């Protein structure tokens, strides 16, 4: 991952961690946060996902 917008993020050993940007309003019910990213290499989909510590699927 080379860049990521609309969220705080950091690169980890196996991927990235994106966080809710501080100072912004919480997500209201039904609201969505869109994160744009660019990455190097061929397109791929992460093989694991977790949100607030709970597994999610992509």
């Amino acid at each position, binding site marked *: 991952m080379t860049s990521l917008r609309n969220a705080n993020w950091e690169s*980890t050993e196996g991927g990235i961690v994106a966080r809710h940007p501080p100072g912004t309003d919480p997500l209201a019910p039904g609201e969505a946060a869109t994160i744009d990213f660019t990455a*190097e290499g061929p397109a791929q989909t992460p093989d694991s996902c977790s949100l607030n510590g*709970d597994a999610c699927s992509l």
Partner: protein
Amino acid sequence: MGRHDGPGGDRRGAHRAEPKNSGTLGNVGQVLGSTVPRRVEPPRLLSVLLVSGVALGLLLFAYSTTQIYLRFNEPPAEQQGAGAVPSPGEEESESPSPQETPDQQTDPGNSSQPGGEGGSPAGLATVSYEVLDSTDSAFSGQITVTNTSRGALADWELVLASPTRR
């Protein structure tokens, strides 16, 4: 031979055998006199305004009630394509729907409920990942975190891991 003056003594010119108020004009006069009031008062302006106001008020009230709708249930959360994730501090005190529970715990290793996160009345959220453009050496995309709960979702943290780090 004296003239007999009975109760109809004032009926000059009428034959004594002729009943009182006889004839066409007499009948018409009786009908009109019995049905038409002697004096018809015009409606007062205050009464007209009062009745009109009440009628208008009722009409507006009836129209305003058409704008009221009741919402007993939240629309079903879209659980297709993206996994549902219970966020920390989830307080679904209501009876959990049986079709949501298995989706939330697709990974047995993460089935334990995390501790509550301060100030976040969380519920369910979905994550979608989409590649929008790609070349041989790079690609770009979009990740969407959607709050499908009934409360606000604050301080979310999304962890994505890939087989090979980029």
